[in-house]
């Protein structure tokens, strides 16, 4: 099966990568680009572990064909922090000890980062809806919500 050339930006870097027509964006990121932050949990868009940003919006990368990302900007958890500085969300997650097994965390952080970019001061209810597409089998939601709420304060202050 002829491979196709996927040209897009991943974490602010222009990339050209050969993908098979039936590769998902998640396959391309993990297998071709070595970005193993996004995970395949369910593979059907239910768990959110594969969440990445496509043109700034959170998407389930297991449901997108790799070639559908052509010409677009992809950001994974690897590109959330600026060099040497954690994103306020990552910082809050570390301080609150949010990760337990850690499998869902890259997806949760990308969903939460998209939420804060759109709504810098979300209510607890809005935070819950913002990460409703992310399942945590360790059920560590309480500390997640606390940490996102705290990071929201930091992000909003930094903006103003």
């Amino acid at each position, binding site marked *: 099966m002829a491979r196709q050339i996927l040209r897009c930006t991943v974490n602010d870097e222009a990339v050209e990568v050969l993908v098979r027509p039936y590769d998902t964006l998640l396959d391309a990121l993990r297998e071709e680009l070595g970005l193993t932050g996004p995970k395949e949990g369910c593979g*059907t868009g239910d768990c959110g572990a594969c969440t990445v940003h496509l043109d700034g919006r959170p998407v389930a990368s297991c449901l997108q064909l790799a070639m559908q990302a052509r010409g677009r900007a992809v950001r994974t958890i690897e590109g959330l922090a600026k060099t040497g500085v954690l994103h306020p969300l990552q910082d809050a997650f570390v301080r609150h000890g949010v990760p337990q097994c850690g499998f869902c965390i890259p997806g949760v952080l990308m969903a939460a980062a998209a939420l804060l970019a759109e709504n810098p001061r979300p209510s607890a209810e809005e935070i819950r809806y913002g990460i409703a597409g992310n399942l945590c089998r360790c059920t560590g939601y309480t500390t997640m919500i606390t940490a996102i709420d705290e990071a929201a304060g930091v992000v909003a202050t930094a903006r103003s």
Partner: protein
Amino acid sequence: MLASAWKAPDRPRRVPEPFVNPNPFPRGDLALRRFELALPESVNDCLKVLAAHGAGARLVAGGTDLLPQMKNGLVKPAFVVDLSGVAPLHALTCDASGLRIGAAVTARAVELDARVRATYPAVAEAAALIGSVQVRNLATVAGNLCNAAPSADMAPPLLALDAEAVIAGPGGTRRVPLTAFFTGVRRTVLGPGELLLEIAVPPPGPRSGGNYLRHTPRRELDIAVVGVASQIALSDGVCAKARIALAAVAPTPLRATAAEGALEGQALTPASIERASRLAVEATHPISDQRGSAEFRRHLVQVLTRRTLTTALARARA
């Protein structure tokens, strides 16, 4: 009594039922099976590719329905045509002439659009209920209709707004009222070689209001047990036009025309709304499945019809 004197009472032994996995998608290898992928950039190119590959080709827009079906082996296309590169299909226009939702417009775009929320609130409400935000950023409104699940959330509000499907095919473009679009469970009027270009919704008119509600056990990431949309227009204090559309109560989404007829020309009162809600139940023929029994679904139709009509009325008066 001594412990040793105790004897277990005789009880009939329960033989456990053999376990049957109710999951209609038994999990196998979730890798996608091989297919060729076309990346057309115009509607004409798209139609050419479809004409060349016929029924073996499938269109993909958001992929949120198609990819899980392909991963689970329910659909095995040899050829997939990606619509995301066809620029005109990304158009979402909302003005005095109505609402037009291009085939590649995501549910999230519709949910967040201020004009849609103001003029077509039921459409925005339904769009906001599909999947999670990660799914809504991919899933398209048109795809939700083409997937033609009986429970499709986008169907009731668009049916209630007299929407039309604009379909391109080898013989040119045709317009099909949404009432004639669904032909069965996961079946539509779309033939091989045809492409849904956009959904066209006429303006709802002055003093009108609409609402979509569904029942789900979970608040997010669930599939409607029943979905109901109501759309009404008022004139001189009476109901000039009423539309009630239902999902997940029959093989296809459908309108409750008898209930609509009972409201038109009448004053909308709690009594007339209650009567219409009971009539709406008669339009349904629900099944019992793991989401709910037929009886529960009939009950939900009555409750949700009453609630959506009441909200639609309040919005029409506002």
